[in-house]
């Protein structure tokens, strides 16, 4: 957490209301995202219990597993899930545009990509887990002799979910989002990041931010006396505590956990007896389990849509669409791999793939930090506080030229700033040119006095002997320079997989991976 974010949390704690951490929306939101609220069976890996899924907040599809330990029922659930999710995930495959690549040749790119939204970080992990559990299965068509073949489209869904889960690890990506991540990116609550993982508690702070609390509420002696803000300083904390702990007469949480884990009290008091009735063949037990799971899923479903509405209300950041392009490339690339008949993603990445992914994520993280700061004065304020940017008024501009054979304009711009940038003579700085949004480069030429910085402009002024119009600020202009690049590039290229050095295990062993065999153990 940066100091600025910490200050926002402290302000939220004092006022009892969530405080903004961003003034624009930093993530792309699709017009019709697919929301997926999964539940899993306690103590089992990859044994789904149920899910609400769909693109219409008023009409979710409820999928349930009456006995999660039964392999056939699990497969039935996964097949039903594929019926709902796959049409959505495949919906944007055929609408394409042609764009030139850096190499010069034209490439096809999907004009949109389907978005998936889950409640929290646990939901993202569960998407990955589901993907892993499905993509190595074999269908009857692929392997007629295998016992217990998977339903037809299940391995395909596994590969899609794996791709979405993997993409979610890329900073700033938006193919798979979690509601808690979306909310915590844009607002600070008066609780810890740990507690922010509870979607209900997080929303409670945000609702408290909106509740109109008249000033007279704080007029009584107690609130005024404790030196806190009037108007119910603890409103958010109280509401969050209710969301975390309030139970009904039967001891069930009024705000069920946002999954994928269930409330143990629900498991023990309601679900286990119902599953026992199902096992005993009692008529109506399956319908009862469906109703029970719906009671646990529906509040989270509504909460995810509420989170989406809240985030959608923010105006999108200027560079969000450009980042979404990266997601569209990623979607297109996965589509191409499927169409080319490539095998499922391996269980573990080979050395080169892993290094490449890591390098790409580092680059994307740097780009995300830069773009968020340029899009949002509040984020930029954090970078200014950290000494990574400075803003101020131009006090003097001095004409100067480079000393080469063909002298180029290198004007010296002196700025008075209240910020404390980590500058030394020679440090490179960047700013966005007013008007066209291109980046202008410069370097620190001198630090003439306290609060004064002289920048030598080194680019963005055209090719002429005179700087292009509007590319050099004039005295009295307000300018903002960053010490970080606006379009950070990645490091050098990595070798091809077949050239993996021995230090990294050498070239990967060839051949597609073994499928997951069904064993007697599948019946848990």
């Amino acid at each position: 957490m940066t100091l600025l974010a910490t200050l926002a949390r402290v302000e939220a704690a004092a006022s009892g209301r969530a405080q903004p951490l961003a003034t624009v929306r930093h993530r792309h939101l699709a017009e019709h995202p697919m929301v997926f609220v999964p539940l899993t069976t306690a103590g089992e890996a990859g044994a789904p219990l149920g899910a609400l899924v769909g693109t219409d907040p008023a009409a979710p599809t409820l999928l349930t597993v009456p006995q999660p330990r039964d392999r056939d029922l699990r497969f039935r659930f996964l097949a039903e899930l594929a019926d709902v999710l796959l049409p959505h995930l495949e919906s944007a495959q055929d609408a394409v545009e042609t764009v030139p690549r850096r190499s010069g040749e034209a490439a096809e790119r999907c004009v949109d990509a389907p978005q998936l939204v889950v409640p929290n970080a646990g939901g993202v992990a569960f998407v990955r887990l589901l993907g892993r559990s499905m993509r190595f299965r074999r269908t009857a068509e692929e392997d007629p002799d295998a016992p217990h073949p998977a339903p037809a489209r299940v391995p395909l869904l596994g590969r899609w979910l794996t791709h979405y889960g993997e993409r979610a690890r890329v900073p700033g990506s938006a193919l798979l989002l979690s509601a808690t991540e979306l909310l915590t990116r844009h607002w600070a609550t008066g609780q810890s990041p740990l507690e922010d993982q509870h979607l209900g508690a997080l929303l409670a702070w945000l609702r408290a931010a909106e509740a109109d609390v008249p000033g007279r509420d704080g007029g009584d002696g107690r609130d005024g006396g404790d030196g806190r803000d009037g108007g119910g300083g603890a409103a958010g904390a109280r509401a969050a505590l209710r969301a975390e702990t309030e139970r009904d007469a039967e001891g069930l949480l009024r705000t069920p956990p946002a999954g994928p884990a269930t409330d143990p009290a629900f498991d023990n008091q309601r679900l286990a007896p119902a599953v026992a009735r199902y096992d005993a063949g009692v008529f109506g037990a399956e319908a009862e389990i469906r109703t029970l799971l719906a009671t646990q899923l529906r509040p989270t479903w509504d909460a995810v849509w509420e989170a989406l509405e809240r985030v959608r209300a923010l105006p999108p950041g200027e560079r969000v669409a450009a980042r979404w392009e990266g997601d569209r490339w990623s979607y297109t690339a996965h589509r191409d791999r499927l169409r080319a008949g490539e095998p499922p993603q391996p269980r573990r990445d080979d050395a080169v793939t892993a290094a490449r992914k890591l390098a790409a994520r580092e680059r994307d993280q740097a780009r995300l930090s830069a773009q968020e700061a340029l899009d949002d004065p509040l984020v930029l304020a954090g970078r200014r506080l950290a000494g990574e940017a400075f803003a101020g008024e131009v006090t003097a501009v001095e004409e100067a030229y480079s000393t080469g054979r063909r002298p180029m304009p290198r004007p010296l711009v002196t700025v008075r700033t209240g910020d404390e940038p980590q500058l030394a003579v020679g440090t490179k700085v960047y700013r966005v040119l007013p008007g066209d949004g291109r980046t202008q480069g410069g370097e620190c030429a001198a630090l003439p006095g306290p609060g004064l910085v002289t920048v030598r402009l080194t680019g963005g002024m055209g090719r002429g002997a005179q700087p292009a119009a509007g590319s050099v600020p004039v005295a009295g202009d307000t300018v903002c320079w960053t010490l970080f690049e606006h379009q950070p590039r990645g490091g050098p290229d990595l070798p091809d997989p077949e050239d993996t050095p021995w230090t990294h295990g050498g070239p990967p062993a060839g051949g597609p991976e073994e499928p997951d065999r069904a064993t007697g153990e599948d019946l848990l």
Partner: protein
Amino acid sequence: MNHRTPAAGLRRRLAELRGPAHPPRPLDARALAALAANPGCRRRALLDGAGVDKAALARALGAPAPFGQSQFAFARGHAFEARVHADGCAALVGLLRAATGDTGPEPTGVEVPDLTADGPAGRAARTRLALAEADDRAARPDGGAVWTVLVHPMLALPVAGSPVHLEPDAVAVAPDGTRTVVEVKSFPILDGTADPAKVGGAARQAAVYALALEESGGPVADALLLVCPKDFSNLPTAAAVDLRRQRAAVRRQLARLTGLADIAAAVPEGVTFDVERPGAELAAAVADVPAAYAPECLATCELAFHCRERARSGGEVTVLGRAVRGELGALRTVDAVLAAAHGTAPGAGAEGGGPEDTGAEDAGAVPDPAVAALRRAARLRAEALAQAGHAAPAPTPAPGAPPPRAARDGGGR
């Protein structure tokens, strides 16, 4: 901890604190590991050391712990453990040898001694006996490669002067007498990796068992054998997890626990944590022992909700996370942070007094870098929010044009 009389005195004192009518709640490895994770918490140290039922105490305080176990997880855990111990533990020995790269001779047999006895002390005695028998076999030249697996043995570890009984899932004794702690967990090892948080928890717990094994003598292996379900199946797989760091950490924390007598001595006479007492009295008693609340407590301590409530009403900044303490330096409360950030004394009527004005007044008197950074942060934040047309933060009227609601809040004090 070898001085008999002070230990007995401490035990009597702890019994008073617990309420003599209640039997002490035995400490388990999980509690010891959690204690080692937050060693600064005197409240937890004393309540655990005295054997107070913290769950009951939390209920009496009106802030019950939300912990519970689903019977699905319970049933699955038991079924899995039974499978691991099936076939006379031969498979378990196989897993251990594979995980540790043991190149010794093929096992000629696996002994699984019966450890049932009455009470924890009796079971601990049986365990000691079984370990001694295993050592005897190891010492015999014609003993062959016989392994011994103690399933649910009982180990004793002196903590703060009194023995604590601990029950690991299993202890394997190699033919050469080396003991290895075995933990059977129900989270999966998927494609060779497992959840690092869960593995860390298991390792801290196992470190406590390893220390207890050391107490009973004999060589103890550096690694824990972690047995988990493989991928999505119910088949056991295992990995060796190095315990040296965790053992050193737990040993250090447990040594510090002997300060229990000092903590107990600081509690006024007559104060008791007897859960039969009324809630208000218990709350006052609990408040007599300082806590070190951090949000991480919510996952491990029954009293966490109570402590969080207290920390919140005291305006402590740790409720926002452990990390914020490092950023805020000596500023420990929400009010102090806001007063520093906005340049106002807490509670002062700041009508018309923006940060700029008051900041200029006492700028010379603020050498604390944390305060200076906060003041800049507040100025930058207010500026950025105003630029974006947002409401300025509520606690104090910000410079510029405070929106009507913020002005009303400020005036309401």
